[in-house]
């Protein structure tokens, strides 16, 4: 009995001393929760020395206190690495900077061209940073975009996050967070992608889809073709597809869902027979049609579906040629080629060199679920 009582006393004593001594306590009011970070490459010139490239980091840290004049704090630093920049930024603020609430990271275009991996590496290494942090490329200077306030919108960090979240839900841009980027970066059969945003007059607008080869930005897809991009990249259940079949004929499909199948024919060693076939099944509701066909009869409907299929095939063919010319395997063709052969063959093959010249073919079948409530 005595032993047990003694032990209990020791236990309580240790608990108290550890609670008093712990340096890992956090007080909410003293913390600065960074919700967006931007990275840019800048050229720094010092007298008598050749110019060096360094990293400009901007953190947007919201304030919760209603009595504060500004709704967020903007911290900026130029350093060699992002964690060094954090130390410099910490000197400018009365709050303790933490990254547990980080929602989006922005990379300037110049930095993206030079390669983003070493900056993402530190983000995925840090256990306090979540996997779902959204990643976006800024057409221009990321720091300028993040530093500005946009009057009609919520605080810039939140604004960017919500914009990306909403638009990726309907396939206007791919849904890309740190997990997706890291996963595709390390996969030898696919290249990563990311959305692009830019600064408008009074707002931030989506600007396109960035294509990567390894960790370097190599090219872009315009937003007008984002749904075709989504068809080729995988399956999805929600999107809107507008098509200009000719000058006088326009169609809009809503609630579009799509399934993709990829077949590999032949072997890469035989150039003539080697071919990648994308088969895409699309379903949607037709809610807008401007043209001369009568949608109430079967013939008109079939004709329209055929024309839409031709349109999508044409666009998809064009897009495949574009991404091949950028050497970006953003649709993961390599994954299918890899899985069609023996391990040794795949690892002996230089897929990066073969990919730009691979023959591709797209087959599309469109099903229109309904034509709305008007004949």
């Amino acid at each position, binding site marked *: 009995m005595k*032993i*047990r009582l003694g*032990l209990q006393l020791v*236990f309580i004593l*240790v*608990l108290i001393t*550890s609670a008093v*001594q*712990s*340096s*890992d306590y956090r007080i909410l009011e003293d913390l600065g929760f960074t919700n967006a970070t931007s990275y840019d490459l800048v050229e720094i010139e010092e007298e008598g020395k050749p110019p060096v490239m360094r990293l400009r980091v901007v953190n947007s840290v919201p304030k919760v206190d209603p009595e504060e004049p500004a709704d967020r704090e903007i911290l900026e630093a130029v350093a060699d690495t992002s964690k060094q920049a954090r130390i410099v930024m910490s000197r400018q603020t009365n709050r303790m900077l933490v990254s*547990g609430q980080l929602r989006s990271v922005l990379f300037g275009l110049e930095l993206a061209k030079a390669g983003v991996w070493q900056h993402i590496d530190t983000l995925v290494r840090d*256990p306090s940073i*979540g*996997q*779902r942090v959204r990643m976006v490329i800024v057409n221009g200077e990321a720091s300028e975009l993040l530093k500005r306030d946009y009057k009609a919108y919520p605080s810039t960090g939140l604004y960017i996050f919500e914009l990306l979240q909403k638009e990726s839900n309907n396939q206007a841009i791919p849904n890309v967070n740190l*997990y997706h980027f*890291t*996963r*595709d*970066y*390390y*996969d*030898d*059969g696919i290249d990563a992608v990311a959305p692009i945003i830019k600064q408008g007059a009074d707002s931030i607008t989506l600007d396109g889809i960035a294509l990567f080869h390894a960790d370097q930005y190599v090219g872009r897809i315009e937003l007008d073709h984002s749904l075709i991009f989504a068809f080729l990249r995988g399956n999805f259940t929600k999107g809107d597809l507008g098509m200009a079949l000719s000058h006088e004929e326009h169609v809009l499909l809503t609630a579009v869902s799509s399934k993709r199948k990829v077949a590999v024919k032949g072997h890469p060693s035989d150039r003539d027979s080697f071919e990648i076939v994308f088969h895409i099944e699309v379903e949607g509701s037709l809610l807008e049609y401007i043209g001369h066909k009568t949608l109430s009869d079967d013939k008109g409907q079939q004709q329209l579906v055929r024309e839409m299929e031709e349109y999508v095939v044409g666009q998809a063919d064009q897009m495949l040629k574009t991404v091949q010319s950028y050497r970006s395997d953003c649709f*993961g063709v390599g*994954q*299918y080629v*890899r*899985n069609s052969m*023996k*391990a040794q063959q*795949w*690892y002996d093959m230089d897929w990066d060199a073969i990919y730009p010249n691979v023959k591709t073919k797209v087959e599309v079948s469109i099903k229109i679920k309904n034509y709305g409530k008007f004949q």
Partner: protein
Amino acid sequence: MKEKLNQYHIAILIYMTQSGIVIFSLPRLVAENFGTNGWYVLVIISLLVTCNIFLMQLVYRFGKGSSVFDILEQRIPLAVLSPIYILLALFWAYLGCLVGKQYILILQMLAFPTTNPMVFKFIFDFMALILISKQIYNITKAATVFFYLTIWMVFVFFFHFPEFSWLRLTPFIGYGGIGGLESWLEIYIAFLGYEVCLFLIPYVPEKTKVFKAVYIGNFFLTFIYLFICVIGFGFFSFGQLTNLVYPLLDMLAYLQLPFIERIENFLFTLFLFKVLMTTVIYFWIAKITLSRVFRKVKSTWLDLSVVVVSYGLSLIPQVISEVERLLRMLGYTQIVIVYVFPLLLLAVIALNRMSNRRRENPS
């Protein structure tokens, strides 16, 4: 009346002892050591474990349900056994203790980067002490409660299905892995813990089919390991998987519920129960081994000495990589023990039988 263990409790106890902190790195270990689709080795190792359990079952059958210590002491004098017992007890206590230390060092990395980990270790060991001061029946009851506190976490992995792709598993088997003896041993360590069944024998009523429960516990563990590894291989790309120190932690970190975010910290804390159970069982084995040497010492003092000595020893490795290396070394040794020990027991039983027969038929 002395309470006895039943099958259901034993199966859960075996599973809880086997599964521990290794599960956090298991998908990577399998990928690193056995390459693409390396998860298949889990099935092979599970079969090896089944064979090993069968050896132990033979000990149970031929030993007619007597305790392993009784069997040994029939043949070998206690004076010879005592130092071996003490060494083994120390070894098992240290093994259990380091499992706890590894958990706490990961916890430190996640949530308390500057707090002294030994403070948490103290609290952890204190909980272990409270548990081992009870009878095995009560420990098992605690294991059952802990099991239900943690097992529902299997369902959170269904949240990963939208990102899961069979494409990433590739059709290649074992490409990019090492696959040497050390690789096999490293994965085998993840299955250790089932050897507790040897020490449970005297606490089980004759009618209970104790080993059926042990097999079930081991198969359940294999199923959980396979499930997590296959999801890991399809959720992460192969290159990414080999770079993640604790893939399971990253998988938990990907979860997001509409009302709460970053729940991995909460889920990781729940794993405390699993790790605690592994530690407690090794402490318990150490304690009953010591009790054969120090028969007159009060059991509370034995409990205390097991915990205090191993706590002291666990101060030596300071960083997580040292703890992991030490654990690997201890794990390899334990693998040898789990094969040699039942073989030794069987040999002793055979010798006893022969001499008994000779006594019965002197001619």
